[in-house]
């Protein structure tokens, strides 16, 4: 990131993400029926800003697309184009495309231009409709350099001003070059005198656009005025030698003109003279500097009746914007969100690490204070208590920094719904709830994949085909609901549909056909539902373009489990299916059981433990040499000695008070893990092992205990997988 341009680009792309979020937000509310001007403005501004930034970086494809998008949206804004549901849907698709384009531009990937061109074509049909209705065609936005030399010529030529076509303005060279006879604006006419100050050019404004905007008001008669430099010194004064006098045939009031010049306030002299009423002098700003209004205008200018007061608000000069209708009220609403700071994730990570360290240190301190036998009401103990409280507060606040609302995730999902429903030709509506629920940023990223899959599943398999829905008396449009909420220290995300529910007979048949369950299995409804999570399971009759890629709900489950979460399924025939994902609030801290094995201290994630048992000799049955099973409530469970599994000791040591942890790596499977003692149950701070050392089989991560020693955190499913290798087969034989 040494290249400054790279850095600017990077921040542009971050901005793009935010803008895109705002855009989709606005479009979504448009889809929900809010067609007010403000919503459209928000969307328009977002696209416009993206286009502006992209233009600066020469991202031509992005500019081209954003431009077309913006053009149509602008027509809506102006009320020339009616906002229909179809149009909003098109906008949403364009929003998706825009995000693709942004991503490709950022990653330097090749972009499939065919798709974007198709959308551009679709947009331009709307644009065409619109321009038929409108007198003035859309102004073509093209960044251009302003050649001041040409402006200074005797006969300023429209062509010299730049490439944009100006069809509605009469060619300037057809106009008399000499100043016209002094004349009063007639009734139904406005006389505008406009003389840019050098600052206008310096701040990147373009008089041509102002003139074009005036042309939108009606037929214009434009007379340029040129004040040639009187001496060589005068040449230094940059750009203030040219002025225009414009007579417009319009019914518009001077206020309309003021609006056009709003951006240029303070950067130019301008005055408006109305044909009807008593005009008054306009003094936009800096009265002393620009007191000589007539100065720029040649002396033979008529002394007009005092122009109408058209004092614009002293708005600070804004950077040039292509906007024929300045959106003054919109600008305020844009900043309604609370101020935020962009921070590198690495820095937060460091802070989180340091706080984790603080927590460990504090635990060590309390331990040594306890060992010193200091009375509980001594100042030291009181101080320690306070310190503990502070540490906890700091820890919570730091974790909050990492937390982000799930909104961005849900927005991505709305796109998935759109694409998926289009692919299978179903009409689907996504409703979301609890968008502001915050979860760890890492979790948000890791949830995208499983959620995408679940949503696709819901669209493809969950919702019935439209005909079936209608036949069953359901609304034509299917509904998928995404909801997030905090519930008892965990984040719960629900994905539900109002489809036909799980076809349990079909699920069972497939499972039987694939040999996933024994022939004579007598499964309850919920057990059948759980079959969906088995590897290699797919219910779709045909592999559609959406699903059937070989990954199924088992992958979803694995991903959720990797986040320390659980997934549950609930389905009612004819009413719908609901998946509930429950995640820990943060990924940096884990609830664990501290156990010892062969003198080593280990942490077992609490969410993997189903129950703990204290064993007696009779509980263990030898199945074969070295193979032992545990009999728990008439069921045989494979047994694994943790010490042996991790290579801490060679022989399985059975003692009377051996403790078994029943862990469930996946639904319906149980493995008993033998440990020596259970020490404690507590929250531990997760420390990665992978970066510093590498992946260790059976170990998920490490943590630091109160005494400063490192303890390893077990990977329950990894451990259980090795149990499944030999012992599990033996168990099944024994059991059947």
């Amino acid at each position, binding site marked *: 990131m040494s290249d400054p341009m790279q850095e600017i680009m990077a921040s542009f792309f971050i901005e793009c993400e935010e803008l895109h979020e705002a855009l989709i937000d606005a479009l979504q509310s448009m889809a929900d029926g809010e067609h007010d001007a403000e919503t459209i403005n928000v969307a328009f501004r977002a696209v416009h800003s993206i286009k502006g930034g992209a233009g600066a970086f020469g991202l031509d494809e992005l500019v081209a697309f954003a431009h077309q998008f913006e053009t149509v949206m602008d027509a809506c804004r102006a009320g020339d184009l009616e906002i229909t549901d179809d149009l909003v849907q098109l906008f949403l698709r364009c929003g998706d495309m825009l995000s693709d384009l942004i991503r490709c531009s950022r990653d330097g990937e090749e972009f499939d231009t065919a798709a974007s061109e198709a959308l551009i074509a679709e947009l331009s049909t709307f644009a065409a409709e619109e321009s038929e209705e409108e007198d003035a065609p859309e102004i073509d936005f093209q960044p251009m350099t302003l050649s001041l030399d040409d402006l200074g010529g005797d006969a300023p030529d429209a062509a010299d001003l730049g490439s944009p076509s100006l069809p509605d303005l009469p060619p300037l060279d057809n106009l008399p070059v000499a100043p016209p006879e002094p004349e009063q604006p007639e009734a139904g006419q406005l006389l505008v005198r406009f003389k840019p100050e050098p600052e206008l050019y310096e701040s990147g404004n373009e008089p041509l656009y102002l003139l074009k905007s005036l042309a939108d008001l009606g037929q214009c008669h434009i007379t340029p005025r040129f004040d040639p430099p009187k001496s060589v010194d005068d040449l230094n004064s940059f750009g203030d030698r040219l002025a225009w006098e414009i007579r417009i045939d319009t019914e518009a009031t001077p206020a309309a003109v003021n609006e056009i010049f709003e951006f240029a306030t303070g950067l130019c002299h301008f005055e408006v003279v109305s044909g009807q009423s008593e005009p008054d002098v306009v003094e936009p700003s800096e009265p002393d500097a620009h007191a000589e209004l007539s100065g720029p205008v040649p002396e033979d200018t008529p002394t007009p009746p005092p122009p109408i007061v058209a004092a614009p608000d002293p708005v600070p000069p804004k950077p040039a914007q292509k906007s024929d209708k300045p959106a003054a009220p919109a600008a305020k609403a844009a900043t309604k969100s609370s101020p935020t700071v962009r921070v590198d994730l690495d820095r937060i990570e460091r802070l989180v*690490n*340091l706080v*984790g*360290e603080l927590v*460990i240190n504090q635990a060590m301190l309390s331990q040594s204070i306890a060992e010193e036998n200091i009375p509980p009401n001594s100042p030291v103990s009181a101080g320690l208590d306070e310190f503990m409280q502070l540490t906890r507060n700091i820890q919570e606040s730091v974790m909050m920094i990492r937390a982000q609302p799930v909104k961005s995730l849900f927005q991505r999902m709305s796109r998935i719904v759109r694409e998926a429903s289009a692919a299978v030709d179903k009409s689907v509506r996504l409703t979301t709830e609890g968008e502001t629920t915050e979860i760890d940023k890492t979790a948000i990223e890791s949830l995208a994949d499983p959620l995408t899959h679940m949503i696709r599943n819901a669209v493809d398999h969950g919702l019935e085909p439209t005909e079936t829905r209608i036949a069953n008396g359901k609304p034509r449009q299917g509904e998928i609901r995404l909801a997030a909420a905090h519930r008892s220290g965990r984040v719960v995300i629900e994905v539900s549909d109002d489809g036909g529910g799980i076809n349990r007979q079909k699920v069972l048949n497939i499972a039987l056909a694939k040999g996933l369950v024994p022939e004579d299995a007598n499964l309850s409804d919920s057990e059948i539902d759980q079959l969906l999570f088995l590897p290699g399971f797919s219910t779709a009759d045909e592999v559609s373009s959406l699903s059937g890629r070989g990954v199924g709900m088992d992958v979803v489950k694995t991903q959720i489990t990797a986040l320390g979460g659980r997934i549950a399924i609930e389905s009612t025939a004819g009413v719908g299916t609901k998946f509930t994902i429950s995640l820990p609030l943060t990924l940096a801290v884990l609830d664990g059981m501290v156990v010892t094995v062969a003198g*080593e*201290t280990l942490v077992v994630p609490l969410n993997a433990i189903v129950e703990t048992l204290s064993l007696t000799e009779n509980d263990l049955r030898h199945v074969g040499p070295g193979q032992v099973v545990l009999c728990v409530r008439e069921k045989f469970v494979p047994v694994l000695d943790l010490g042996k*599994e*991790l*290579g*801490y000791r060679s022989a399985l040591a059975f003692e009377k008070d051996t403790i078994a942890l029943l862990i469930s790596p996946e639904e319906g499977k149980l493995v008993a893990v033998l440990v020596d003692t259970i020490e404690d149950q507590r929250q531990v701070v997760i*420390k*990665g*092992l992978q970066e*510093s*050392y*590498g*992946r*260790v*089989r*059976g*170990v998920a991560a*490490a943590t*630091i205990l109160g005494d*400063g*020693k*490192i*303890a*390893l955190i077990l990977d329950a499913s990894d451990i259980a997988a090795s149990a499944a290798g030999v012992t599990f087969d033996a168990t099944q034989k024994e059991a059947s």
Partner: protein
Amino acid sequence: MTNLSERENVTVDTSRAEQTEFLSFRIGESEYSVEIMAVREIRGWTRTTSLPHAPRFVRGVINLRGTVLPVVDLAMRLGLEETEPEERNVIIVVDVGTRVMGLRVDAVSDILSFTKDQLQPPPDVATSAKAPFVKALTILDDRMVRLLDLEVVLPTGDEIAA
């Protein structure tokens, strides 16, 4: 921490090529060294937490101010006589590429400084199974100093997975 206090300044003729500094340490009776720029810190011995399925020479991991630091027992890695860790042992924390690792050695002895010219590649005779760890040799005050190739000393991905 360690006693680098009796650090004698072994400066060789500086008029020659660039001087490089090396940290030398003892394992049993032998003296080894590593480039000092690779050394991040030196700390006293603390008990390690063993890693399952790790090669024998990986003693385990320790808590280095909140990060998990794997520790390699150099004596075992180099195939020297194995000794049980004692209080007076030292862990040298080294940076190798993107990785940070601890090396358990008996004691740190010196900071040496010599030029590239003084380093000799190990003679072919010595290139037996145990030698690839030594990248160069030099003689200093009648002592032979071995310069370790840290890249080779650290466990490879294969060894970890084993």
